[in-house]
């Protein structure tokens, strides 16, 4: 399915920017404040002159009033490292769900690229599968589209192993967005906790579909786990269906509670909801985009 967006939607995205609750050091100059003091244009503070400092930063007006040599400090504005960690396991293979995940990734990429953020798209299944950095600038969005369109879902999910692998490589800490259905038998919370422990500002985008929430039909059925191929013959009675739906609600509540406890942003993206509504409303309500 092509992931291209309409021009008017792209314009709307350009007015948004990814909100990071913390400041991270970037690599290149951009328009995000960083904890560094440097050559920005935004005055930050003074500090005493020490030999070797650049004379050009001495505040001579202050010297005249206070007779002390003080240097003017400016905020360094750099780019924000954004890691889009996308679940491409078989559980995401349902077309509506996978499309929603990819379109969300594309939209977030565009917002980031529009603000010169440094994007890294990482896919995972039982481990990290593919990592790609499209570059900087809005023009790179087409590379992102191409990349996402070529993606295929398959394989089991292991968010914990994937996050361990993510942590094993030296990276700048930044904003990490995990887009997944979080149907992970090993437990999604451990993986998210690892990312949080690394110092990343973590956002969980919970992509769901109707098939996740509701068994749909009654009667005898042979359920096949899309990831493991495990078979389970079930006789779905209304009572059992109710129990399943309650279990799903409980699973979601636990994920929300976990995210709240560890300061992880949570946004739920139901595949049946309009995509633009999720991006323009849900993400803003979740304080992920502003």
């Amino acid at each position: 399915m092509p992931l291209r967006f309409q021009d008017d939607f792209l314009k709307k995205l350009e007015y948004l920017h990814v909100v990071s609750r913390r400041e991270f050091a970037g690599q290149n100059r951009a328009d995000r404040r960083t904890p560094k003091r440097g050559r920005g244009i935004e005055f930050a503070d003074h500090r005493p002159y020490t030999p070797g400092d650049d004379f050009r930063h001495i505040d001579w007006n202050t010297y005249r009033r206070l007779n002390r040599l003080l240097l003017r400090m400016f905020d360094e504005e750099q780019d924000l490292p954004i890691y889009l960690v996308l679940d491409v396991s078989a559980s995401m293979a349902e077309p509506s769900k996978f499309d929603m995940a990819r379109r969300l990734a594309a939209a977030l990429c565009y917002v980031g690229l529009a603000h010169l953020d440094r994007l890294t798209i990482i896919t995972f299944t039982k481990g990290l599968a593919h990592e790609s950095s499209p570059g900087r600038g809005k023009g790179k969005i087409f590379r992102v589209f191409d990349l996402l369109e070529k993606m295929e879902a398959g394989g089991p999910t292991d968010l914990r192993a994937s996050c361990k692998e993510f942590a094993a490589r030296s990276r700048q800490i930044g904003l990490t967005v995990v887009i997944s259905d979080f149907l992970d038998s090993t437990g999604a919370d451990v993986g998210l906790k690892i990312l949080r422990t690394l110092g990343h500002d973590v956002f969980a985008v919970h992509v769901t579909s109707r098939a996740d929430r509701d068994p749909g039909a009654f009667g005898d059925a042979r359920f096949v786990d899309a990831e493991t191929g495990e078979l389970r013959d079930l006789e779905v009675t209304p009572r059992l269906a109710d129990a399943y739906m309650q279990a799903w609600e409980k699973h979601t509540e636990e994920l929300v509670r976990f995210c709240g406890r560890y300061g992880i942003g949570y946004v739920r993206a139901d595949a049946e909801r309009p995509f633009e509504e999720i991006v323009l409303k849900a993400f803003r309500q979740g304080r992920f985009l502003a």
Partner: protein
Amino acid sequence: MTFGGLAAWQAWLLLGAAAAAAAWLFLLKVRPPRVIVPSLLLWRKVLDEAREQTLWERIRRAVSLAVTILIAVALAAAIARPSRQVRAASSASARAPRVLIVLDSSWSMLGRTRSGETRWERAVAEARRVAAGAAGSDIAIATTAEGLVEGPTADLSSIDTALDRLQPAGSTASGWPRLSGAEVHFLTDGAVARALDSAVVLHSVFEAADNVGITAFDVRPALDGTDSDEAYVEIGNFGPAQNVRITMTRGAQSLIDRRADMAAGDALRQVVTLPRGGAADLRVRIDAPKDSLPADDEAFGWIEASRPLLVTVVSSQPSWLAPVFAATPGIRAVTISPAGYRPGDENIVIFDRTVPPTPSAKPALYIAPPAGAWVGSTPDRLEPKPQWTTPAAHPLLAGVDPFTFSIERARIYEPAKFTAIARSAAGTPLVWAGDDPGRARAAILAFGPGDSNLAAAPAFPVLIGNAIDWLARPAAPGARRIGRAAFDASVLRVIGPGNVGLPVIQIPGERVAMLRSPGLYTAEAAASRTTFAVNIADPDVSNLSRSTIATSQATVAVGEGISPRPWWLYLIALAFAAVLVEWWTWLRRITV
């Protein structure tokens, strides 16, 4: 337990196999549809939790399995047709290779019992049980009226079919049905006394019942010397005292419509004068509250005199015949000259010393016909003073004393397709009878009033009466009884009530038909027809409180209220009900 459709081991094998197959098919799940789900993670959580199950959820599968097996077993059992062991003393003994089941088909078997079924239905149900109990043996079915009607055969379905079509016929066959080496079961109410062999297993369907019936009905010439007729009806009350309504109609005319209080065991007799003229059919009907046998509530009569025979006398000198017809009731004679005769609607033609060029199309008596082509004679062929010899037995000559005839001369004929039934000592035929199938009957008298003392002979009126009966009334008139009836060989067709033709069996010398119900019947011959009434009118039949079965006789009492339906019908119904239960179980399965 015995099985009518299969041998016992086959039946049990079938039942076992059906139960096993049903259980196997139940447990052999149909491959369910595959549903690919993102993850079984949550399903595992749900199933691992101890779910609260209702009692129905826990037992539903077991109930469904039991019902499925029940359906299969019921259907298999319906095929095997199980039955209880016959309760006859003989059934406990070694199974006979042949079984003869005889049903009493007297009319009293139509008597209704307290449980609402008739004795006949009860007997048929018992016959089915006896047949089912003798499964594997050769079985034959017979009735007292028709003799052997089915079998011997081991095919129970043939026996069932035969039992379905049998009905009481009310008469007795020529002999007791026999089947060599067979164990005989006789199912009867004992209304009619029969001498039975001691080996016969008697099944009694007798149950005393109240009844009112017409025990006698007939039409006869009035005894008061007038030319009218009278009907005699007798009604018997074989129940408690009750009020009986009696109606008698003649054609559309009502003759009697009255009520009579009859005491228990009372008999009511009534004679009704029937004036000449009017319809010939007479019908009597009774209605009473305590009446178990409808068949004897109606009786029919036929007033022969209301339809007099038309006799045309073709003669130039008929005066000598006039006294004979004047004294015979029921005959209307018309005299016509030979030149003026044309065939009309007469029943009989008497040619007195004349002969048509071809044999008459109507039944005809030729008295001393002149020489002609078809009678095969010449004028000079005569035998003077012939002497009678003892004539052959023939209806024409029944009761005729030939030696009262004094004959001067007899003519010698050689008619084709006629038989000489009386000859002179010299061998000259004196009386010819023509009874060729497809032609009207005819008789030729070889001497006339000018050749003999025919007009004055005492045997002449008898001879004329015989001739009229033989020529125009091929079947004996008057009331007949229900059952097997013999008719004259000339009868071609017997038409019963409702204008329905009856099958007529031809046996040497006569025709036989089965008269199965009361009513008016017509027997048709080539050129004549006779109507006669058939009634039950038998006190033995109407008295349903009496049985000739002695209490000392070893009988198998057939219980009250036994349904005539075989088991397998109930098994089919059970299977259907079980299907409904299973269907309900299935619905509960998906809507709980």
